[in-house]
């Protein structure tokens, strides 16, 4: 089974702090994603990565950055946390299909609920 793990289930940080959210997948997947989930808004894509050291902006990248130094690990960074970044953060990964095309089927971690006070 694919396993996607996130470093913390719950996190409380203060406004202005630098926050690191870590995500690790154990199935050698090429693609990794960061979403935030807010009530009534569904999942919104923050950043994604096709490969090591590659990153692409999603729909709401402002206030975030990412790092992918190793294939299995994708980190989300809040440079200076603000209260409007209080949310559930979900990491996902996906692989390539049998024809070596990227797959849309994404596997999700359990999420990190971040509260910024």
């Amino acid at each position, binding site marked *: 089974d694919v396993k*996607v793990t996130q470093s913390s289930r719950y996190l409380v940080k203060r406004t202005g702090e630098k926050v690191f959210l870590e995500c690790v997948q154990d199935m050698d997947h090429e*693609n990794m*994603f960061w*979403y935030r989930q807010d009530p*009534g*808004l*569904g*999942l*919104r*894509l923050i950043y*994604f990565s*096709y490969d090591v050291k590659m990153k*692409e902006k*999603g729909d709401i990248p402002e206030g975030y950055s990412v790092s992918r130094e190793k294939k299995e690990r994708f980190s989300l960074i809040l440079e200076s946390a603000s209260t409007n970044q209080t949310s559930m953060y*979900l990491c*996902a990964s*996906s692989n390539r299909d049998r024809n070596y095309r*990227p*797959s*849309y*089927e*994404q*596997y*999700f*971690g*359990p*999420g990190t609920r971040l509260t910024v006070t």
Partner: protein
Amino acid sequence: GESVGLHLPTLSVQEGDNSIINCAYSNSASDYFIWYKQESGKGPQFIIDIRSNMDKRQGQRVTVLLNKTVKHLSLQIAATQPGDSAVYFCAESKYGYALNFGKGTSLLVTP
């Protein structure tokens, strides 16, 4: 801009009945659609997918129907069970093999 929306935010069904969860999409260029299930305290879990060149796809107790004419997607769950209680999201393909998610429908199965 494009959006993926759901007709109803909540749905309550009796155990044993069939459930139908609907989803409207607006991006006619999307070629792939997925349904996810999210149980409380967990990340979304893949249920079933369908490509735009198909109208129907069946899985175990689930069926997804795609109507490209009216840009409508539905998930049918047969003989709904208490374990089916969850939030269901439809998602459509977008750039970079990412997904655009809808806002979710909460399914509550009552005994």
